């Protein structure tokens, strides 16, 4: 009972703190950047991290096994990994754009886990015979870490795409303005207009430079986080195959979850291959990674929704 209460408290604290962090993020977006606020949001993420760690440890002690055996627990674990990814650059004193991705991701996964469909799912359940193995820790933690890192990386790539295409739209919009404003009433106004345009073009060019730098940064960080995620995914899939050979009698059963994990792996392998080619680099690899974002969600969630196949442990109990 104490455990349950503690768990309840920790879940709600972590979710509230993440909500506050998101609020602070929006504030810093609207108002000019306050250093103090930014710092407090980082502290908030740290609090979330500790709360989630406490939650996982409580659950571990309470249930007697690693708390990643069903969907609710894996969601908690996912947001825990997101908060770790958020922490790493903070401790290296390296401000980057990952935090703007990880904080909302934590918010959404934590929010989904805390309420929503899963209220009756968060009762800790017993471990079915097939899951009683040492491989559980290796396989599931690696898979969920891989999903988390790949989700972050693909979101960065999606951000890259959005920024790239937004630039194009902006320029078109500016051209329209130019056309509208190029009917001067008299000479002076024309001159002023011209000066304005000059100022504008100067401003946008410097802005374009920053945008270019931002795109470069996004590309760079996306690649880094994706390569970590890809490594985790590879380890996860291979350890899963070895485990399946122990438990089910075959290292590969073409079960829907396995197939989709393999599809995910292939998509990100394509991403890394496009990176090696100079002609396909940049936008194309970002498109591939954004496709990967959808594929991960199908793999992680969609297959569970159907609740078929051998990996039916994580499925919704409401349906089956």
């Amino acid at each position, binding site marked *: 009972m104490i455990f349950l209460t503690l768990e309840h408290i920790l879940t709600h604290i972590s979710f509230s703190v993440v909500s506050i962090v998101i609020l602070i993020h929006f504030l810093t977006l609207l108002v000019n950047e306050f250093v103090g606020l930014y710092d407090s949001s980082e502290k908030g993420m740290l609090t979330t991290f500790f709360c989630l760690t406490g939650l996982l440890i409580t659950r571990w002690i309470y249930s007697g096994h690693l708390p990643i055996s069903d969907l609710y627990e894996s969601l908690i674990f996912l947001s825990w990994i997101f908060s770790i990814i958020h922490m790493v650059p903070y401790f290296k004193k390296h401000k980057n754009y990952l935090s703007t991705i990880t904080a909302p991701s934590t918010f959404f996964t934590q929010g989904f886990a805390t309420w929503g469909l899963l209220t009756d799912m968060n009762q800790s359940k017993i471990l*079915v015979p097939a899951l009683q193995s040492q491989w559980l820790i290796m396989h599931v933690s690696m898979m969920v870490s891989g999903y988390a890192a790949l989700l972050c990386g693909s979101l960065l790539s999606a951000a890259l795409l959005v920024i790239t295409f937004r630039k194009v739209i902006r320029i078109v919009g500016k051209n329209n303005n130019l056309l509208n404003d190029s009917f001067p009433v008299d000479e002076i106004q024309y001159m002023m207009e011209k000066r304005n345009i000059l100022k504008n073009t100067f401003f946008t060019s410097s802005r374009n430079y920053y945008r270019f730098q931002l795109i470069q940064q996004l590309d760079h960080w996306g690649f880094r986080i994706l390569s970590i995620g890809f490594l985790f995914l590879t380890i996860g899939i291979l350890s899963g195959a*070895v485990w399946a050979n122990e438990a089910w009698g075959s290292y590969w059963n073409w079960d829907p979850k396995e197939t989709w994990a393999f599809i995910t792996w292939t998509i990100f392998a394509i991403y890394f291959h496009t990176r090696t080619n100079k002609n396909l680099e940049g936008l194309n690899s970002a498109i591939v990674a954004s496709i990967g974002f959808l594929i991960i969600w199908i793999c992680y969630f969609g297959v569970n929704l159907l609740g078929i196949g051998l990996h039916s442990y994580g499925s919704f109990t409401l349906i089956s």
Partner: protein
Amino acid sequence: MGILNPTKPPCSSLFSTHFLKPTLLLNSKIVRLKPQIHTLYTTTTTNNRSRLSVTIITCGKLKTSKEIKNKDNKASGKIILSDSAPPVVSEESGGGGGGGNGEKVPVKTGTGALGFLKRLPRKVLAVLSNLPLAIGEMFAIAVLMALGTLIDQGEAPQFYFQKVSRRESFLGILHLEVGSHPRIPLAKVARRWNYLHSADAIRKQEFSDNLPRASVQDLGVILMGAGYEVFLKGPSLYAFKGTGWSVFPYWGDVLGPSGFLSTPTEAFNTEVHVNKFYMDYYDGGDIKQFHTDLSLFDLNGKEVMRKTISVNDPLRYGGITVYQTDWSISALQVRKNDEGPFNLAMAPLKISGDNKLYGTFLPVGDVNSPNVKGISMLARDLQSIVLYDQEGKFVGVRRPNSKLPIDIDGMTIIIEDAIGSSGLELKTDPGVPVVYAGFGALMLTTCLSYLSHSQIWALQDGTAVTVGGKTNRAKGEFQYEINLLLDKVPEIVESSLPKQSDVASG
């Protein structure tokens, strides 16, 4: 001799080679450099053009001493004559291991057919190692796999043929399939092996008969009473009677060997004997684990191995692996009014993962009457059996082995025992070590791809130096770093040839 550009008349080329031979030898002995280009201008009368540039590329890049010796004899430095301006980047040919940078490498035309044969694998390799092709293949695989998950898998081939050929009855078949085996997990499909699903197959047996207006369940009860072991699954029934079986029958997937590597049947002259099947339970009553105590006997009846297997803990013997995959309840031993014991076959009512429900039925009164009534017994596991009377009202719960009688409608029922059956899977797969080696290689290469690897090429072109580079990691930082390094390269004011070569080497 060097390779000549065929567009040039031989006289001029001869002239230039003789002219430059000493320097060429000198270069190849001492310096190990990127290719150097010497440009000189001559006038020829044979050509209409007044000026012509002769480019000679000497190659001294990373040769072994043996190759250098050979070079002394043959003077195999490359001399390319061309009308146009000298090429900016030109890698040396074949032997030096430079790994042509996408440049066309002049191939030695030795013996024609042999050369072609030698070139063919390289061409094939070049096609296969084409990056867009690889990416396209991976996309195709991903898309096909995604499509594959949408189609029902694991059905018999006829299912698909029917689907394709008889499109008008497509929905009908689909409906039938869904109705008859609702959501059977893939692993279980093979287990239907024991049952015959088509009436034709049954009619082909030595004995066959047709019973109008009959129920397979009734048949099961009757067979059970006659001492058969009865297995029911949906509309199919399978029963056997024999002396060679232990009390706890085992059933499992006995799949024929498939694949060119599998030759296990002769090697496995071993008898598998199930000694005991039992389950562990959590405090809440849920199943924790199920175990089967197995003995392996050789042909002489000697026990060679004994092990209690469970899920995640298979038995391995001589290339054969025995897995614990499933369990079910096959029968209840029931005593009615001190008659019996009868074996009542248990039918699976619900199978979804590890939440199972089995039920059986003890008919009361006239078995042949159209609306026969009786006592229903339900069990989730081997621990407890729930009994319902003729009206379907709950009567009580009894544990097997407790020998505690229960009175239902004037009858005394004693549940003697619940007979579980263990689902075993025997597998032989000699390919597993190969697959594991593949896993290891994949892990290794994935990790190796994290090592950063940068390459830089530079070329002296007159007074200018062309630098190119590529890296597999951190491309933005690499550019920045190279720019910093290139800024440090000193500018040459007085142009002199030896100094230039020093710069090129750096």
